[in-house]
């Protein structure tokens, strides 16, 4: 078998092809260089597969901010779409509305945060009004709420947030955490409703 110069080598069938065999035999120096799109398509396919594998249908339930650094946890469940109370080192917010400043809350001796409780009651009423016409109990109010708090916040603030949630009818409290380690590790019978 003779030694051939490096370059494209087409099979016997394609050697005389108008598309692939064109210019393959010694016709160098043409102005039109072929761009190989096979690696490009391969790369696209791999990227699409990777992104589809990582796709989350739930979307981003919690809005991540610089003020709130979440603690890590391993035995977590997937976060669901519920009202989110955000507790940073400076303020407590719900749905973008500031309901209390941490400095003031530390000084007060109330058990709840009145503005938060009022807002949650409004949200509960809104939910019940929206779902009152729906048939069945599939969309019944379950009282779930997500608390997204900064890791250095003291329990005295969390306690007041929890009490306000419970007073407004939100008894199922979920602490938002960053998932560390194995994903989707479902603890058994963790639901306490």
């Amino acid at each position, binding site marked *: 078998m003779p030694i051939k110069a490096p370059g494209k080598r087409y099979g016997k069938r394609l050697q005389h092809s108008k598309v692939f065999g064109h210019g393959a035999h010694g016709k160098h120096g043409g102005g039109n260089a072929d761009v190989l799109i096979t690696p490009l398509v391969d790369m696209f396919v791999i990227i699409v597969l990777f992104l589809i594998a990582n796709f989350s249908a739930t979307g981003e339930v919690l809005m991540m901010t610089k003020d709130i650094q979440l603690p890590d946890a391993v035995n977590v469940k997937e976060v*669901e779409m519920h009202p989110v109370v955000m507790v940073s080192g400076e303020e407590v917010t719900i749905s973008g509305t500031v309901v209390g400043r941490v400095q003031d809350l530390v000084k007060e001796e109330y058990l709840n945060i009145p503005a938060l409780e009022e807002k949650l009651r409004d949200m509960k009423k809104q939910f019940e009004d929206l779902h009152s016409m729906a048939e069945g109990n599939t969309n019944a109010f379950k009282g779930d709420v997500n608390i997204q708090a900064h890791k250095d916040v003291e*329990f005295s603030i969390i306690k007041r947030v929890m009490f306000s949630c419970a007073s407004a009818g939100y008894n199922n409290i979920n602490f938002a955490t960053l998932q560390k380690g194995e994903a989707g590790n479902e603890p058994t019978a963790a639901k306490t409703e």
Partner: protein
Amino acid sequence: MAGGMDLGGGKGKKSLDVAINLTPFIDLMAVTISFLIMTAVWTQIGRLQVAQAGGPSMEDEQKQEEQTKTVQLTLYVTPTELRLAADQSEFPAIEAKRGENGKLDLAPLVARFKELKGQFPDQSAITLQTEDKVRYEDLVRIIDQCIGAGLPQVSVSAVMG
């Protein structure tokens, strides 16, 4: 060419050497990649479900306690120590030591949970009585360890008095 592959080139027959137009395919890929990158969730966030001590779930827990061999398990959480109590008996306090990264060392607590689960395999509920000065991160890590140790029904309450 009965029974054989038509390689083309014959008179009146179409050639098989047709270049597939890949442009629409690449366009579709580009649009799909853009959409998936825009909607991708890069931070994996989870939730730890807790109940408030004295809330509506407590009645169910009490019924369950009557049916199975369980105890009223309480963990007192303070910034300096952790004290586990099962009914009237109290275990020795665990000092809250912190590692180099500032995180609470919970290995002794996990060992105690394992010991307790050996005695009461049906136990699934625990109440965390937490002091005001305890950091949220420490509380979350303790709840995480409780769930990991097979105590998924975690209730949180403030220290009385």
